[in-house]
């Protein structure tokens, strides 16, 4: 049913299976595309726009993580235009919340910070929103700090798709969007939460963390989630 196709990525011919996304084909062929909301083991959301790529013959940029590779496609993953869009996306994330790396538990292990460094975001060209946001410390083991959330929805997807608890979702809309537990209750009061910690392991920033860590101490393991996803798929 699934046939082999050929696509060109940055000029190199790559073999792919029909239905694979551009992102997957690129990774399989040793090409790294920047990403934040995408995560191996859970569905794609296409929300962060870091993985935008150029496809020959199409004017607008397409997200690699949700666009299926098609026969004969010619994809460009690095260009000045793409870098400037990716930098812009990052700058807007910094503007929206309060990212003070120097006092963050994830300093030095943060995917947002690492991407900003690798894409050369040395400053932000727009005024900061500096919203007043809360920190939820009601859970006995974990903390949710809205100041550092980028709304990537990895926590939502991993809790729903891997743990099966669906504690999290995104409430509100636009600039007022927030990650919410149940009916926007304190996390510690959630009846659905099993305290498995998967959401904490996959958060790319310092928004979901384990209690008891000081600045720069919070490291994570995403790889375990990909392994669990494989196991889950294997057992009916």
């Amino acid at each position: 049913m699934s046939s082999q196709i050929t696509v060109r990525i940055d000029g190199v011919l790559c073999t792919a299976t029909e239905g694979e996304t551009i992102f997957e084909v690129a990774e399989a062929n040793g090409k790294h595309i920047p990403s934040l909301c995408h995560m191996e083991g859970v569905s794609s959301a296409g929300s962060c726009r870091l993985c935008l790529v150029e496809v020959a013959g199409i004017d607008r940029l397409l997200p690699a993580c949700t666009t299926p590779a098609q026969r004969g496609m010619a994809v460009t993953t690095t260009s000045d235009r793409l870098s400037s869009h990716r930098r812009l996306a990052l700058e807007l994330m910094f503007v929206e919340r309060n990212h003070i790396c120097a006092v963050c538990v994830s300093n030095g292990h943060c995917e947002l910070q690492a991407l900003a460094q690798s894409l050369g975001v040395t400053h932000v060209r727009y005024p900061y929103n500096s919203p007043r946001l809360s920190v939820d410390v009601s859970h006995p083991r974990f903390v949710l700090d809205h100041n550092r959330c980028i709304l990537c929805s990895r926590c939502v997807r991993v809790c729903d798709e891997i743990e099966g608890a669906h504690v999290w979702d995104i409430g509100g809309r636009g600039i007022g969007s927030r990650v919410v537990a149940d009916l926007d209750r304190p996390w510690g009061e959630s009846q659905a939460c099993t305290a498995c910690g998967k959401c904490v392991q996959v958060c790319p920033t310092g928004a979901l963390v384990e209690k008891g860590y000081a600045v720069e101490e919070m490291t994570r393991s995403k790889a375990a989630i990909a392994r669990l996803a494989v196991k889950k798929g294997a057992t009916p």
Partner: protein
Amino acid sequence: MQSAASQRLQTFDQAFVDSVIAERTGRPGALLGILQKVQEHQPAQYLPTEVLEYIAAKTATPLSRIYGVVTFYALFSLAPQGKNSVCICRGTACHTRGSRDLLEQAMMRLGLQQDQDGETESLSVTTPDGLTTLRTVACFGQCALAPVVEVNHTIFGHMNERSLQKALETLDLGGPLS
């Protein structure tokens, strides 16, 4: 436990909610339809926590997904709404034609206070007497008539302070607007 659960169900019409769920389950977009029907049936046109919890349990929908839907669509309300509704468009076309002033005027006439954090993306406030709910929307789709205001389900175009004043006088407040 049993009695505690049935106690809580008194805040809404359980038989009605059950029938709406039964009629819509399995249809695409069922949740939206269920929430909309139930809200229309509620006396103060809103969705109390108890009803959301009941729908979640009955339809096996995660609470956070329901909350996400209810807070995404402007049509849903988590707080009791007044019997009068005033809705001011704050979309781009209406903004450039002075809808901010109209909003300020309506807030003042209704005796409502602006949120301390300044202007939020969308506003929905009810007067302390519970009679009137003032909301904003991001566009009515009637930009040619900007600025647009809706008062008790009638759309008014090309509004100015005088016509807004007139429209607000039609509100049923059980007496003249002071």
